[in-house]
């Protein structure tokens, strides 16, 4: 009995060690990247694995001065904030009408939006490029907001509609009896109730917008308007690659995401799973 117990304990210990190694290998590349970005190019070349002996922000200063990372950062931030706001407003409105009303063309619109979740975005690259060229929308500050909002809508509408459907009708009926208009009911009464699902939509759309690459690569040409993912590729092709500087640039791109994730990890995980499994 005792031997069995000891064997079980040893087994459990080995198991824990193995899983711990796996977990650490999931973050090691990121940790390595971040601490290496604090080394000088020389120190890194001499010993690529050791911790920085004299941490320095020199690489960050250079990433901003020569590679203009702060511009890409601002562009990403701008595009993400505007896109997320529009996705939330649009999906809330459309989701509400889908959840509450039967109207002409509802089925058609509904199918059209839901089918959007299946469309592979790469099929849209060429026609969107051509379309934007015709409309003079290529390479503008607002360019990327168009596809990001359009592609974010299907999932967001789906989540909103499912959520609103479960809100009891009595709440709106009471509001109408009190003489509230549709607009007032919509934004003063229903919107606050939707807070939990709105935060899910914000997380999902903010992440996919911040990380998006293909459209940014095709639709934006001028350096001053590039977002972080494209800015990074630029960085490595244009300058003679200084690895530690590239690492600092990558860190600038991922730090906001990592901090947000660590602060709200439960909510983020739940949101991404809700988005993926689609109910």
């Amino acid at each position, binding site marked *: 009995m005792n031997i069995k117990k000891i064997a079980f304990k040893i087994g459990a210990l080995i198991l824990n060690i193995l899983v711990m190694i796996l977990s650490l290998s999931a973050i090691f590349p990121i940790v390595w990247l971040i601490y290496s970005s604090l080394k000088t190019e020389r120190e890194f070349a001499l010993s690529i694995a050791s911790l920085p002996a004299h941490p320095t922000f020199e690489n960050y200063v250079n990433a901003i001065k020569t590679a203009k990372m702060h511009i890409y950062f601002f562009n990403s931030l701008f595009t993400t904030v505007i896109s997320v706001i529009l996705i939330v407003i649009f999906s809330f409105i459309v989701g509400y009408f889908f959840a509450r009303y039967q109207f002409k063309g509802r089925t058609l619109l509904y199918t059209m939006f839901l089918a959007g979740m299946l469309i592979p975005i790469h099929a849209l690259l060429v026609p969107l490029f051509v379309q934007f060229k015709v409309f003079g929308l290529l390479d503008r500050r607002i360019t990327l907001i168009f596809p990001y909002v359009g592609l974010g809508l299907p999932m967001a509408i789906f989540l909103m509609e499912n959520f609103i459907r479960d809100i009891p009708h009595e709440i709106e009926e009471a509001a109408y009896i009190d003489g509230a208009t549709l607009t007032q009911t919509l934004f003063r009464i229903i919107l606050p109730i939707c807070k939990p699902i709105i935060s899910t939509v914000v997380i999902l759309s903010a992440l996919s917008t911040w*990380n998006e690459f293909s459209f940014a690569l095709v639709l934006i040409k001028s350096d001053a308007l590039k977002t972080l993912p494209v800015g990074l590729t630029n960085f490595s092709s244009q300058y003679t690659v200084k690895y530690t500087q590239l690492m600092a640039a990558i860190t600038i791109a991922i730090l906001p995401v*990592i901090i947000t994730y660590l602060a709200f990890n439960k909510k983020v995980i739940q949101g991404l799973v809700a988005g993926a499994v689609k109910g």
Partner: protein
Amino acid sequence: MERQLFKPRARIFIAYLSLPVLWYLFVVVVPLVLAIRYSLYEWSGGPKMKFVGLSNYIQLIHDYDFWFSFKNNLIITLLCIIGQIGIAFILAALMTTQALKFKEFHRTVIFLPVVLSPVVIGFIWMLMYNQQIGILNWVLRAIGLGTLVKPWLDDPKLVIYSVSVPLIWQYIGFYLVILMASLQSIPKEIFEAAEIDGADGFKRTIYVILPLLSDTLKVSIMLCIAGNMKVFDHIYVMTGGGPGKSSMVMAQYAYNNSFIMFKLGYGSTISVGILVLSLVIILLSRKLMGGSEK
């Protein structure tokens, strides 16, 4: 449908819905229709557009490079199904045992790469694979496996496996969390009963957990196929499809044709081809697995 509330007039519907609907038509529906149209033309972006009927599609069927890319997509998909869902399944099963500690920590940490941009993941692994400064070769040397040191991304035979590793690595956490969520909806008594009946860890996993998760596993496999048929960002950053064409995938091939060689017509044909092939593979695998609950 449910009972109707006080119903606003049509003009209010139009006022509220027109902007989102027009927006969506402009950036999703119209381009999709145009993609099909362009796929029937020979066109390099200029004013000259030559209608060629289905000949682009005939060319696509005989295009060795396209089918080679498709084969690479299949290899990546297969490796990802085994790697991502396999590892995630084992971890999810372990998460149900008492023996494993720090479950919360493991889940949080393993999920972290999921939220990062694929471009960033590509860059990080490019650095890790690097010949001079890569940590991978450094580790191999440090633990006395110097003979295994390789030019991971420059060896045409190896590269397709090298580019799959970051993909697998990034999304294990995603499938882990899906599987864990589905295990949480199963009453704890089932696991306890299995333990009382004397089922050991292995038997418990195979006979209790696997059947309970089969539907979720099927959904995961579908997600995995759909995701890997359109894989692009990682590859673009790490190899651009090279060396030569050895790590070329369909999306990269479509991109190269459309935006490097400016064959906009043929590029569209390729993307329609990707769409069709993805659907076929998804339907086929659904048939093979005996259909999922949805």
